[in-house]
C-alpha cells in the first residue's frame, strides 16, 4: 500500500505504457497471423481514483467487470487532512490530479472556489438527481450544474454503551438537558467514567451546531456572510463550557488510539456521532463489540425532531481529466448502483443517499452484530430525513477548521471560554476572507 502511495503517478503511467506496448505487440502478432482482434484494447480508458475508504478497489473491480474498456486504479493517499493537502497541492501545481476523487460534502465549496471540480451534468441523464435525498443533491448541485455525485451520508445519532449506562442507572437522554443531567450523574456515580468526551473536533462541532440551527456562512459569488459567533453558537458554547467546568465530560484529544480505547473500555459511555462511526470503532475494539446501541440525537426542544449530518462523501471529477465522460460514468456507478450501495451499507456502515434504499424496509431492518442485533438503520434513516438542507460550509473550510481547533484548544486548556473562542474564530475568519478577496457582509 505504501509503495502504491509513494509511486502513485509513476505506477499508473507505467501501467498505461505497458498496456499500450502490450496491445501494439498483440496488434503486430495479429497482423502477422491474420487474426482479427477486438479494437477495444487500444481504446482502453484509464481512470485514477483517490479514495481512503476501505475496500473501494473491490467496488471498482465490479465496475471494471461491467465496463471492460475502463481500467480503474484506486489509490489511497491518506484520510482527512493529508488527502486534501495532496489534492490542493496538485491543483496548485496544475499537474498530478487524479481523474476522480472522493471528497466530503463539507469540502465541495472549497474545491469549487479553486475552480477544480468538473461539471458532470453534460454526461448525466436528465432527472438523475431525483433518486437522491434532497439535501445531498442540494449540496452537490448549483442550478443545472453538478459538481459531484453523492455516495454516502453521515446521519447522526447517539451511540451509547448499553452496559455502562445500565450499570450506573443512567437513562438514555432524549434532550440535551437530559444529556447534561445524566453526564453529571455518571461522573458522580463513577469517577473517571464520562458520558462523553469533548475532544477538539471541528467536523463534529459543525455537525452538532448544524442541528442547533447554526448557519455560519452564506456565500454568493464573491460575497460572503460570516456569522460564526451568533447567539446559537454562544448558547452551545456555554452549554459545553458548563459541562467542562463541572468536570462532567472529559476533554482529551479525539481520534487517538487512547481515545478509541476509552470508547471501547467504557471510559466514555456515549458518542454523538454519524452512521459511519462503527467502521472506525471496530478497528480498535476488543471488549465492547455488540454492546453498542443507537438512539436518536438528543434534542434542543423536548419532543423535537431535528437531526444532523456529519461527513458523508461524494465522487467528484476534476476539470483536468481527459476522460470526463468515463469519469462521470464511473462516479454514477459508484454513487447510484443500488446493489453496490446495499453491500456498502451492510458490510461497511456507509449509509446510502438513494431515496429508494432509505425507503427499503428490508434493508433498513438489517440487524448488526456491532449493535447487538439492533436494526439501527431505522434510527439513521429517520435522522437523514430530519437534516435541514440549508447549511452551508465555507469556501475555505479547512482554514475555519484550523481556527476552531486552535481556539477551542485554548479554551480547553483553561485560557478563556468556548464562547470567547467563537469571537476569536469569527475575527480570524473575517480577516482571512477579506484577505482572500471576498466581500464580507
Amino acid at each position, binding site marked *: 500500500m505504501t509503495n502504491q502511495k509513494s509511486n502513485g503517478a509513476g505506477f499508473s503511467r507505467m501501467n498505461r505504457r505497458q498496456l499500450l506496448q502490450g496491445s501494439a505487440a498483440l496488434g503486430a502478432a495479429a497482423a502477422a497471423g491474420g487474426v482479427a482482434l477486438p479494437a477495444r484494447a487500444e481504446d482502453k480508458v484509464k481512470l485514477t481514483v483517490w479514495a481512503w475508504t476501505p475496500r473501494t478497489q473491490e467496488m471498482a473491480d465490479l465496475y471494471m467487470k461491467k465496463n471492460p474498456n475502463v481500467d480503474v486504479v484506486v489509490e489511497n493517499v491518506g484520510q482527512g487532512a493529508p488527502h486534501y493537502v495532496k489534492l490542493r497541492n496538485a491543483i496548485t501545481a496544475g499537474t498530478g490530479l487524479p481523474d476522480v476523487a472522493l471528497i466530503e460534502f463539507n469540502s465541495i465549496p472549497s474545491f469549487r472556489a479553486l475552480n477544480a471540480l468538473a461539471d458532470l451534468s453534460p454526461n448525466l441523464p436528465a432527472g438523475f438527481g431525483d433518486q437522491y435525498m434532497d439535501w445531498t443533491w442540494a449540496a452537490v448541485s448549483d442550478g443545472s450544474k453538478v459538481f459531484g455525485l453523492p455516495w454516502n451520508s453521515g446521519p447522526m445519532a447517539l451511540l451509547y454503551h448499553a452496559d455502562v449506562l445500565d450499570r450506573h442507572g443512567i437513562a438514555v437522554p432524549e434532550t440535551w438537558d437530559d444529556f447534561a443531567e445524566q453526564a453529571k450523574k455518571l461522573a458522580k456515580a463513577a469517577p473517571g467514567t464520562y458520558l462523553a468526551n469533548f475532544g477538539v473536533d471541528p467536523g463534529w462541532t459543525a455537525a452538532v451546531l448544524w442541528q442547533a440551527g447554526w448557519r455560519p456562512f452564506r456565500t454568493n459569488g464573491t460575497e460572503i456572510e460570516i456569522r460564526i459567533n451568533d447567539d446559537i453558537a454562544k448558547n452551545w458554547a456555554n452549554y459545553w463550557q458548563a459541562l467542562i467546568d463541572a468536570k462532567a465530560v472529559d476533554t482529551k484529544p479525539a481520534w487517538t488510539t487512547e481515545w478509541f480505547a476509552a470508547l471501547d473500555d467504557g471510559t466514555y459511555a456515549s458518542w454523538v456521532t454519524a452512521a459511519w462511526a462503527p467502521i472506525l470503532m471496530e478497528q480498535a475494539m476488543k471488549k465492547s463489540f455488540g454492546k453498542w446501541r443507537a438512539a436518536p440525537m438528543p434534542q434542543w426542544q423536548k419532543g423535537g425532531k431535528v437531526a444532523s449530518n456529519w461527513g458523508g462523501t461524494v465522487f467528484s471529477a476534476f476539470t483536468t481529466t481527459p476522460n470526463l465522460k468515463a469519469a462521470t460514468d464511473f462516479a454514477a456507478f459508484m454513487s447510484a448502483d443500488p446493489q453496490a450501495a446495499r453491500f456498502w451499507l451492510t458490510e461497511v456502515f456507509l449509509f446510502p443517499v438513494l431515496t429508494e434504499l432509505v425507503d427499503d424496509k428490508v434493508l433498513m431492518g438489517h440487524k448488526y452484530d456491532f449493535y447487538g442485533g439492533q436494526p439501527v438503520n431505522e434510527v439513521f434513516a429517520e435522522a437523514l430525513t430530519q437534516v435541514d438542507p440549508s447549511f452551508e460550509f465555507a469556501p475555505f473550510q479547512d482554514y475555519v477548521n484550523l481556527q476552531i481547533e486552535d481556539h477551542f484548544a485554548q479554551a480547553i486548556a483553561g485560557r478563556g471560554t468556548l464562547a470567547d473562542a467563537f469571537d476569536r474564530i469569527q475575527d480570524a475568519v473575517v480577516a*482571512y476572507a477579506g484577505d482572500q478577496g471576498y466581500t464580507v457582509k
Partner: protein
Amino acid sequence: MTRSLAGHRPRVIIGKKIAPYVLLLPFVLVFVAFLIVPMIYAFNLSLHKTALVGGTRFVGFDNYARAFVDPNFWSGVWLLVRFGLIQMPIMLSLALAFALILDSGLVYARGLFRIAFFLPYAVPAVIATLMWGYLYGPAYGPIAQIAAFLSLPKPDFFSENAILGSIANITIWEYTGYNMIIYFAALQAIPTDLEEASKMDGASAFTYAVRVKLPMIVPMIIVTIMFSIIGTLQLFSEPYLITNLARSVINSHFTPNYYAYTLAFTAQQYNYSAAISFVLGAVVAVFSYAFMLASNRGAR
C-alpha cells in the same frame, strides 16, 4: 612528477586549473537545482499574493511587513528560545560528559557504548517521535501504567507546563549521541604526550580532563552549539507528529516552521508562508551571528 616533462606542462596546468571545478560540478549542479533555484522560486512567491478571489498580483514586500508584526510568528520564535535554553545545555553537557568518560579509557567495551549512544541518531525523527508519543501516552502508555501500578498519580506529559520538556526530552534522546561522536573524535585527536606531561605534573585524570582536554576541544563545542541553534529554530517534526496527542497545547503556529507549514498547506497562503520562511532564515542568521560574535569576544 610531471614537472620534468616540459612538453606536457601547459596541458597539466590547464588540467590542474580545471580539475577542481570538474570535481565540484556534481555538487554545484545539485546545490543549484535543489537549493538556489527553489530559493529564488520561493523568494519570487513571497513578493506576490494569490487570493481565492482576484488571482495573483505583485505586492512587493507587503508579506514581509506583515510577518515582522505577526504575533503568531514571534510567539513561535520566543517559544523556541525558551526551548533552546532548556534543551541545548542539557544535551550538550550530556554529550560532553559521555565523550569524556569514553575517552578516559575507564570504560570496557568502549566501541559498544559509542554505538549505543549514537544509535538514537540513526532512528528517523518520525519513528522516534511516534515511539515517545506512545511512551508518554496518558492512560495506556507504559510510564502511566507503571505509575498506576505503584499507585502514583499518572504524569501528564502533554500538559501546558510539561510539553516543552517532553519535546526537549525527545530531541535530547535523538541528538546527544550525534554531538557526543563529534566531541569524542576531537578528544581522540589530542596527542597522548599531553596526558603524560600532565601526569608528571601531578594532575589527576579529572583535572586533566577539565583543564587540558576541555579547552582543546572548545572550537568543536562552538560548532555543535551553532548546529544546535540552527536545528532548534527549525524545530518541526517532533511537535507536528505529537499534535494529535497534545492538541490543547500545540497549535497551528507552535513553532515558526509549523506556522509556515499550516499557512501553505491548510490556509493556502503560499506567498505569506514563503515570506515567513525567509524571515525565519533571517532570524536563524541573526542568532548564529550573535553567538559567533559572543564566542569570539569570549575567546579574546
